[in-house]
């Protein structure tokens, strides 16, 4: 344990010195993973699958704000689906527009959760998402997790729907679209996962914030158990088919992910070196403010006036 803590402190030390570059690097890696996953799951347009293009896009993300990843990923998804079928692309565009209008306006900060949720689904560790969102976020995060799950299920459903038929007349468009939308709305698995994830996020959040010892660890474990039970009971009640094996292994993988995140990300105040400029009537000041490393842990989460 002492070893781990010293590793963590070393990481913190390095990070506080080179935060700008490390952040850019992480944005690049995240963007690259997201785009590769989009290409793997809905890659219908060959032109967009070129590794050079994807790498260039990801490099661009290194200098843009993190939210640009979401916009690029959404555009990539729509273009791929457009190559598959115009109707599918239309449905997904409508979904993205609705998500933007109804939710992102309220909490743009959380939008990374919405990208990470489908990513976790694609990497077969979806159950880590509500736990991590509950640990890191606010109560609103449950809506972000739900939006991410909706985006994943809709894109997945539309992609598998086989709606890539030639469209000849209005009736055909109407009936295909109706089938698509009914399929999306009637997807019981999606409903179950959304309810389970929202409830788990709230449970983890409430336990994490409560004033008990080891509340973070308790939150992680009880969140995992709650999620598991919710989905098992829910699938029995709603008559959906859930692979119990996948559920158990997914939850088992979610635990270490959440624990690692807690240890390296949430328990440390990653304060960083800042470069500031200001002036008064006598001088110009170019200040490099280097934070003092203290091993106070995550008790210091509530900041007073700038640390």
């Amino acid at each position, binding site marked *: 344990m002492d070893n781990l803590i010293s590793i963590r402190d070393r990481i913190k030390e390095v990070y506080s010195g080179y935060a700008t570059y490390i952040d850019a690097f992480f944005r690049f890696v995240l963007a690259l993973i997201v785009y590769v996953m989009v290409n793997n799951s809905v890659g219908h347009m060959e032109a967009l699958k070129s590794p050079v293009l994807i790498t260039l896009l990801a490099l661009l993300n290194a200098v843009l704000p993190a939210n640009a990843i979401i916009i690029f990923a959404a555009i990539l998804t729509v273009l791929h689906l457009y190559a598959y079928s115009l109707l599918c692309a239309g449905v997904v565009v*409508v979904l993205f*527009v*609705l998500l933007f*209008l*109804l939710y992102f*306006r*309220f909490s743009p900060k959380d939008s990374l959760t919405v990208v990470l949720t489908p990513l976790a689904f694609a990497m077969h560790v979806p159950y880590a998402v509500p736990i991590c969102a509950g640990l890191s976020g606010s109560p609103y995060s449950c809506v972000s997790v739900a939006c991410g799950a909706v985006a994943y299920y809709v894109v997945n459903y539309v992609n598998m729907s086989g709606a890539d038929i030639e469209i000849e007349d*209005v*009736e055909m*468009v*109407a*009936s295909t*679209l*109706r089938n698509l*939308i009914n399929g999306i709305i009637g997807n019981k698995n999606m409903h179950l996962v959304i309810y389970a994830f929202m409830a788990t996020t709230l449970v983890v959040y409430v336990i994490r914030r409560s004033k008990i010892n080891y509340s973070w660890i308790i939150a992680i474990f009880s969140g995992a158990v709650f999620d598991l039970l919710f989905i098992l009971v829910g699938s029995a009640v709603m008559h959906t088919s859930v692979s119990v094996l996948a559920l158990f292994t997914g939850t088992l993988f979610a635990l270490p992910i959440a624990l690692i995140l807690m240890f390296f990300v949430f328990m440390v105040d990653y304060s960083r070196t*800042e470069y*500031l*400029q*200001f002036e*008064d009537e006598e*001088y110009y*000041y170019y*200040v490099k*403010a280097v934070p003092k490393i203290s091993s106070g842990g995550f008790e210091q989460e509530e900041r*007073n*006036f*700038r640390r």
Partner: protein
Amino acid sequence: MLDKDKIILMTRMASYEATEGKKMIPIAGYFRSDYVGFNIIKSAVSVTLAFIVIVSVYLVCNADKFISEFYEANFMDVVSRFINIYGFVLIIYILVSYIVYSFKYTAARKSVRIYQKALKKLISMYGR
């Protein structure tokens, strides 16, 4: 002569201005009613756009039905049902945005208050 305390204070304030304060200071510049009211109007506009999108998808989905029943349909009925749903959703959204933006405003005021205290302290340093 360089004043160490003053530089520390100014550095902290500059750091706040560059990070958290970037969002908070403009919000705290509004009156509460202006900030909340303006954002409620923005949410109402986005709900209206979202509603238009949903209704158009619904209409396209049921286009064949509408065309075949064009002469029998009671349009007033359909329209009034849409308007009822729209009004209901709009009211819920207005309430939610009232709550969310009131909280945001209070948080911003709280965050900026500490900054303003530091500002006063800085002014008093110049006075001495």
